[in-house]
């Protein structure tokens, strides 16, 4: 039931991100949009942080496996690992934002590129943050004596959400960072 609910929720979130992506691509041919994307974004920093986020999906799978076996100590460890990897990704995004705003003078209001870039990656970042909060809540639940059953019910749904956030990042990363080198 909770998994069905989460699948529907991420279905609606997917439409939300598709709309933002269409918004981003809509401006592709306007002015020097793609050149700005290539010159001012730092793909060399983005790649490692992307790998960090993707690896967090694997750590989550490990946590889920331990949870299913009933080894709650190890499950907790891997859940916290997953949350930490999410935080590392967010700090990478924070660094990118800081660099763009301070060094390149790219802001939400500097150009259409700025608006589209910050909206797309910002909303994704918010979803990562939401996921981290959910993971920490789940970890806390699993340590409580009477929270174990709730945790068992929630872990599948939160997993679907966390993998979804990863998949969205693959779409965002491909569009924002890779596409300027392909087209």
């Amino acid at each position: 039931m909770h998994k069905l609910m989460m699948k529907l929720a991420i279905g609606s979130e997917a439409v939300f991100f598709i709309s933002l992506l269409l918004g981003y691509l809509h401006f592709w041919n306007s002015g020097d949009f793609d050149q700005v994307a290539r010159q001012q974004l730092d793909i060399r920093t983005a790649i490692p942080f992307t790998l960090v986020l993707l690896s967090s999906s694997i750590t989550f799978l490990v946590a889920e496996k331990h949870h299913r076996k009933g080894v709650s100590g190890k499950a907790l460890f891997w859940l916290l690992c997953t949350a930490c990897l999410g935080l590392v990704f967010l700090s990478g995004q924070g660094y990118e934002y800081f660099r763009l705003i301070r060094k390149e003078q790219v802001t939400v209001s500097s150009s259409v590129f700025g608006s589209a870039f910050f909206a797309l990656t910002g909303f994704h970042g918010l979803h990562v943050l939401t996921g981290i909060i959910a993971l920490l809540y789940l970890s806390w639940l699993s340590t409580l004596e009477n929270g174990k059953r709730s945790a068992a019910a929630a872990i599948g749904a939160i997993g679907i959400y966390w993998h979804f956030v990863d998949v969205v990042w693959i779409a965002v990363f491909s569009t924002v960072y890779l596409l300027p080198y392909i087209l």
Partner: protein
Amino acid sequence: MDTFFTHTVDKLPAASGRKKPLHHWFTTVDHKDIGIMYLLTALFFFIIGGSAALLMRVQLAVANNQLLHPDVYNQLFTMHGTTMIFFVMMPALLGITVYVTPLMIGANEMAYPRLNAFALWITLFGGLLLYFSIAAGGAPNAGWFNYAPLNQQQYSTSRGIDYYAMGLLLAGIGSVSTGINTIVTVLTMRVKGMSLKRVPLFVWMALVNSFLIVGALPALNAALSMLLLDRLINAHFFNTAAGGSALLWEHLFWMFGHPEVYILILPAFGVYSEVFQVFSGKRIFGYAFVAGSTVAIALLSFGVWVHHMFATGLGNTVNSFFAASSMLIGIPTGVKIFNWLGTMYGGHLRFTVPMLFAVAFLIEFTIGGLSGIAFSIVPIDWQLTDSYFVVAHLHYVFIGGSLFGMFAALFYWFPKMSGRMLDERLGRWFFWLFVIGFNLTFFIQHFLGLMGMPRRVYTYPDIPYYTLLNFLASAGAFLMALAVMLLLYNLYRSIRKGPPAPADPWDAFTLEWYTASPPPEKNFDRLPPVNSRRPLWDLKHPENPDKD
């Protein structure tokens, strides 16, 4: 048959007399209370949105009228449309959905009761936030679809559109929550024996509709988020002066907006499907076609949005594609009209108020459908777009389709919700006054549109026939207002001293009529076996049960 009636009769009067304390309504998560509060929210905003319409019709009653300032008029038509769509029709259909769906599938609650309550309150607060704009310096004034670049800071300087975006965003989150909740409820909480081929058609419509809500609303939410970024922190999505795109807003808005008009009509289709069956005393004619054509509508509805944008110059290829898809979507809707006619054919017809609205719907909605097909022909659209012909068309489908469905639902389920019968005689007065007023107002507007009167003008010169036709349209609006006052009186009187409603006042077929009116907090203590699409028919006619 005997056991059925004794079972329900001894449960009858207990629940109806007890009054719930005020704080109960703020804390309840009971799907029945939430449903009723959705309906009250809709009624509240219906009165406000209707008053805005009356003010507009007063302004337009005579030529060269200077009663309302043009600025005020802009705010009025914007608030009228926004209110009626987002805070009247949406809460009304969601209210009926969350009230009726669990009862119809034999469940005692929605899958997520607290999410249900959250969705109600966030929708209500979204509406209040929209109206707070008036206190904050001016209501939104760029029309209900709020086109760019008119929705930008430099053209709309009051805070109105900020409140529009935030209010709709909140309501949108609420609607998506309820959509998800309804799908999970229908898919996981049906009583034993009720396969998806046996659920009542209203539930089928609610299910398909919820998928539409989950798939369409996020496009609007994304557009509103971008708009808020534009207006609050100076982003450039829709700001054409800084490289933004007005077309992007139109695309995103109508990617939501066209599924939205089906979101508003599908639950009404569900209501009509129940009403036609019960008051014809027959099974639906072509269950699978009603359900299947609804799925077809839902899928097609995501591929027709550009027919709102024929005049923006996207080119002949794009226009032709969307003209064809728009004509295509008329077919599954037409199929249903014949299903309902076939259900009535040879039936033992009872013209109660819900049935009257259902029959009127067949006629009015067909008119609205035909003018809609006319709009899918691109040159006709170019000629008539932004004229009163559009106003006539959309009111025929929204009022003649969606609102009539909500009225039919109100009269049909009021006994279940309140434990009291509505007055049929007052109801018939309401029906005739409203239908006559509605046709007077909006049929005439077809001609005004053909004569070239543009929509959204605050006044017009004294051209031959303009004053006469507009005056008649205004008179019709007041007939509708009179009818609504009769409805309010009917509701007030019936809640206080209407005759108590038995569990099954209409001799109906579906499970909600098995429990008491109003149902106890836990809907069902026990349920009849479900071996067909009409469990109550089987119970009442054991000698002649349904085969499917």
